[in-house]
């Protein structure tokens, strides 16, 4: 099947998902990000790679954190950044997604950063751009429904490589609401592509998608067993709306079984790192002593995220 993320030379032209990308492209992004880390430490934190280009942040769903990091990344690449809060503008007046895109194309956009509540929306946009002959415009998925959040997945890979060096010797556990998590899916595909031999998913049956094993993941329902001898622990945010009702009885019961406490973390390797895509629910999925503890690398993840987003935008815009 035609992979809509790659051009006919096999280069990355949109970043829609970590699935289906060769390891070489993932590594290229991580290496490029590493070179941008130095930019962030300069007095003048800018490189001219996207000078004169327009990056449109299209957030059909609210997000402050991701939008801000994309904005910082684009500005450090010297791009012009336009933030559109679409939840409150055109689509609220009945304009369709693709009408919005056509209008923005007419405003000489070069790159769309898209967040949307529906899985697959960035694919629809990328396909539409191809159909109207605008292969010069690139799409970066900033989170679509439950499907993918590839820049988060890549910044997680950057973090893991930074602390652990070699992917091929690792045991990585992803804990929590994997069913509704686009971060988990992006992490799983990136980890398996980069050669991690053992990826584990830990959570109650109600929060795990069916057929996870087909993605190359080992499923655990018992937290202690799942964390045993892991090198990396990726915690997922438990959304408020999942805490009551048929999926889970209460936040308290969830924390007792799947919350990451210092005691639970002791099951993993002593040098295991703890990651979280944020924002954290302290006392729901993670104990403050762990979140603020020496093994947590949650704040460095945010810093790396800017370099990774710079890398992604400069690579797609250059192809």
């Amino acid at each position: 099947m035609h992979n809509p993320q790659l051009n006919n030379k096999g280069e990355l032209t949109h970043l829609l998902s970590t699935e289906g990308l060769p390891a070489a492209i993932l590594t290229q992004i991580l290496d490029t990000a590493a070179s941008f880390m130095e930019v962030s430490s300069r007095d003048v934190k800018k490189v001219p790679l996207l000078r004169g280009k327009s990056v449109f942040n299209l957030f059909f769903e609210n997000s402050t954190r991701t939008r801000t990091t994309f904005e910082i990344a684009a500005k450090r690449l010297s791009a012009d950044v336009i933030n559109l809060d679409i939840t409150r503008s055109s689509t609220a007046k009945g304009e369709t997604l693709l009408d919005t895109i056509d209008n923005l194309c007419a405003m000489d956009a070069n790159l769309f950063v898209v967040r949307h509540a529906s899985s697959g929306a960035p694919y629809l946009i990328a396909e539409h751009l191809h159909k109207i002959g605008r292969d010069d415009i690139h799409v970066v998925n900033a989170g679509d429904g439950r499907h993918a959040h590839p820049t988060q997945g890549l910044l997680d890979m950057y973090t893991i490589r930074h602390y652990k060096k070699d992917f091929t010797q690792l045991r990585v556990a992803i804990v929590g609401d994997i069913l509704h998590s686009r971060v988990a899916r992006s992490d799983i595909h990136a980890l398996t592509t980069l050669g991690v031999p053992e990826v584990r998913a830990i959570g109650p049956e109600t929060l795990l998608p069916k057929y996870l094993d087909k993605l190359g993941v080992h499923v655990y329902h018992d937290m202690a067993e799942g964390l045993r001898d892991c090198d990396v622990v990726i915690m997922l945010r438990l959304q408020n709306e999942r805490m009551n009702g048929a999926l889970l009885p209460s936040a308290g019961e969830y924390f007792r079984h799947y919350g990451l406490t210092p005691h639970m973390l002791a099951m993993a390797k002593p040098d295991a790192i703890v990651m979280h895509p944020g924002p954290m629910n302290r006392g729901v999925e993670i104990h403050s002593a762990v979140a603020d503890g020496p093994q947590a690398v949650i704040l460095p993840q945010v810093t790396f995220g800017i370099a990774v987003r710079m890398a992604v935008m400069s690579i797609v815009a250059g192809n």
Partner: protein
Amino acid sequence: MNIEISNGRVICPKNGVDRDNASVYIAHGRIVGLGEAPKGFVATQKVDASGCVVSPGLIDLGARLNSIEAELAAAVAGGVTSVVVPPDADPPLDEPELADRRVHRGEEIGKARVLPLGALTLGLKGERLAELAGLKKAGCVAFSQASRPVVDTEALLRAMEYAATFGFAVWLQPQDHWLSRSGIAHEGEVASRLGLAGIPVAAETIAVGSIIQLVRDTGCRVHLTRISSAAGMSLIQRAAKEGLPISCDVGIHHLLLTENDIGYFNPHARFVPPLRAQGDRQALSDVAAAGGAAICSDHTPVGADDKLLPFGEAKPGATGLEVLLPLTLKWAEAAGVSLPAALARITSAPAEILGVDGGSLAVGAPADICVFDPQASWQLAPEALRSRGKNSPWMGYMMTGKVMHTLVDGRIVYST
């Protein structure tokens, strides 16, 4: 007018007829001879069917007619001479007057026969019974909820009891409301990978199980529409073997496509019920091949804008009337089913489910006939379709099997 259709391969699955170079003779809207001309027959019009198959007209057990004129033209262009129309129009077909109007409009257009299904409950809300006897009198062939389940099991029980009182058939699409309400794709590997909310197979099996039990208790004749899963189909086949008055059909797309055809969120692969796994498709195909299910188009024309949306927001369904024949031939070839057996699934099997005397080329039967070239191929393109619905997962594909002439009631209503 007296018509002779000559030189064709005449196939009538119902009567086991499969003859090369035979003629069919038509007078007064009926078939008056097969092979030999009746005494004194003089053809006023001859149709040369050399190289073609002469088959009973197709009976489609499920086609939505949003713009009735265009869709009935599409029907006869696809060789479909009778269309069963679900009641989920706007407004729903829940009053005799609405049914009456629909039937008359169909007669006025004079293409395919319109066989409306009446709403089982008012507004299809699953609460209060519609006037079933009145709807029947107005021309409804059976009663249905279209794809909207009756949530209240007592209401369903009462509806079936009431229908059984009058000997009416009830058509139900088995989908548990609670398990299907928020899903958009088969709860399988693909939905997990793409992050699409899943509809488990249990949504179908639970509904099938309840309905079978109610059939056992009420004796109501039930036709189950658009079966999607191996497990659901197996329950139905067992119930039918038990002697319960249950029949079923499968949408043609579900015989050919699976969850994998969603690819990268292709909105044209969104259906209700959803396309399921390869094992499900295989089981449906096996049952259809063995004669245990009829095949229908589940024709659902939607506007282009309704598909230019992310997968979960796109309207489900595909255009079907004009591709029912070529896709059934495609299925038959892949499944190793003979041409007469394949045609039975879309002619005599639906006729039997409906209890009508169409779907046959027997002398005395209504002259509803489809003449098609089984070798001719054509490309599916929007402009090749008469239907307003250009939505198809097969757009751009080559179709084999081309309708040359369609007759309804002894009148030629379509010729290429």
